[in-house]
């Protein structure tokens, strides 16, 4: 927060920090139930999701079929764990349901397909598909005169998929200023550290006619500000390149060597819960 920040902004960021901590504890609850999962990524997304679902999205649990709601597409379906956390924290699903994450027969699948769980707009998981669907959705909403915006959340690994750039070219060409893309850059992918360099992501999107800003994915005030600036952009799609730390909030999770899909010893969960509960919130 800057010294000039208004009381309202300070209150908002304080609220968001409490939401982010709650989201992390929901992520923990899911991973603990299964004993494994995309736990580190869930923690890494919590701050961005707190801002999205409790500030930025024109969306609420009682408007899940409202044609004018903002749409949120989880292109990186592997991060479903944080989407379920957000749906629980907003009251769309019961918090108790989180215990079934990834279990056989559970509605809370590892990839978040639309159907059983309300509030899931689209099937990610086959990586690199979200941005094109988001662009089509944004084009269709604009054509029908709707003010809703479309948010796509993708990982940095997805930047390597060619179809992402087909979509980026299309969105730039059609001036989709109701489209917001969030690229979560944690510098890891399934085989470890990024196996193929993706930078300069900012310049890549700018080359296709996008407005781009980079942000620390754990700086709540910075994220709020970045979304606000994106909102004021007209005549072009916008992209937030968010730099994140896998396992953010839990040194135990963050230090895992193979953090992409982690299995944690039963006795370590108490330690992680202690770490997450002790995360400072902004007051």
């Amino acid at each position, binding site marked *: 927060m800057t010294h000039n920040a208004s009381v309202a902004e300070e209150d908002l960021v304080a609220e968001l920090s409490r939401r982010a901590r709650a989201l992390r504890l929901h992520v923990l609850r899911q991973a603990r139930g299964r004993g494994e999962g995309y736990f580190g990524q869930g923690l890494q997304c919590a701050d961005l999701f707190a801002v999205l679902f409790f500030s930025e999205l024109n969306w609420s649990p009682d408007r899940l079929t409202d044609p004018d709601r903002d749409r949120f597409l989880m292109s990186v379906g592997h991060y479903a764990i944080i989407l379920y956390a957000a749906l629980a924290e907003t009251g769309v699903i019961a918090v108790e349901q989180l215990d079934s994450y990834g279990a056989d027969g559970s509605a809370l699948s590892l990839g978040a397909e639309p159907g059983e769980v309300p509030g899931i707009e689209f099937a990610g998981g086959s990586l690199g*598909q979200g941005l*094109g*669907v988001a662009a*089509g959705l944004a084009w*269709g909403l604009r054509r029908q005169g709707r003010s809703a915006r479309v948010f796509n959340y993708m990982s940095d690994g997805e930047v390597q998929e060619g179809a992402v750039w087909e979509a980026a070219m*299309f969105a730039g060409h059609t001036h989709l200023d109701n489209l917001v893309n969030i690229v979560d850059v944690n510098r890891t992918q399934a085989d470890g550290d990024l196996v193929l360099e993706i930078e300069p992501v900012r310049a890549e999107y700018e080359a296709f006619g996008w407005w781009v800003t980079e942000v620390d994915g754990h700086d709540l005030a910075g994220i709020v500000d970045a979304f606000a600036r994106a909102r004021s952009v007209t005549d072009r799609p916008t992209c937030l390149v968010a730099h994140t730390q896998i396992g953010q909030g839990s040194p135990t999770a963050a230090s895992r060597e193979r953090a992409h899909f982690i299995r944690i010893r039963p006795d370590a969960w108490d330690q992680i819960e202690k770490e997450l509960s002790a995360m400072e919130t902004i007051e």
Partner: protein
Amino acid sequence: VSNPPRTAGKHRGAEQAATGAARAMGMDSAPAGFGTALIAAAEQREEILAVTADLGRYTELTEFARRYPDRLLNVGMAEQNMVAVAGGLALSGLMPVVTSFAAFLTRRAQDFVVMQVALPKLPVLLVGAVPGICQTFGPSHASIDDVAMMRALPHIVVLDPCDSVEQGQATLAALDYGGPVYMRKLRGSEPVVVDRDSYRFEIGRAAPLRSGGDVVIFASSIMVYESLEAADRLSAEGVAAAVVNVSTLKPFDEQTVLEHAARAGAVVTAENHSIRGGLCGAVSETLAAHGVGAPVVAVGIHDEFPHFGSTEYLKRVHGMAADDVAVAARDAIARRDNRGVP
């Protein structure tokens, strides 16, 4: 390289599709079936729009684009994004009609079809043009596997009409269906097979076009015409061949297929596709599952990539001309009789 004119048989209306200069390339087509039906539907329904990947001119969208310039979304040469965008358009409440060559729409964009059309059961009409040997450019453009890929997918209807009349009716049915449909689209220059006034296409229904008790030919696409020609020649030799137009590959009309196969005891399948995974596959699976023992002789592409050349040339080199269908019919009858099946 244009198709030689054919004499209209009794199953054919007199009307032939108009010809155009670009058709000599084996790619363009008049708005004979699909294009006019699409325009008719779009006049009634605001939510219909067309999406293509730089092949609007070659998929009968020229007139549509002239009438509705703001309802044609051309995404450039990007078939994966085309299907992703179509999924998004459907999510927004619109009814996208997606066109490309069948080979690109399926091979290149299949994962997007799976995840963004079939899985969420969205109302998207996927139109794969110049299927099989209707495409004369060579292996890169010749879709001999599109029906197999689409038929293996849950939730999606798969259509392979036999001429421009059925193409038009199938287009309207697909637009009314309310879920995912993959429809192969002919060039429009093919001989008209079914009667424009009396024929009624229905999703999921195979249409018997000719009766005959000695052998049954299940056919689709341009092979329906070849099969009717074959039946004429067989008839001259005293062999009565039934011809059934199986234009819906999924859902499959098992009842009609079983009835005809059981009655004849000798079966030919004739398709504009690989004999693996398409019509021959569907017929064989159905007969096997129901214990109907009849030899099945397959006409189509036999485990090879199509050559380059005109459709008429490709019919000859791949054994897909009327004479080849007649040979297959005699073969099926011989196999049945040698086994002692009545």
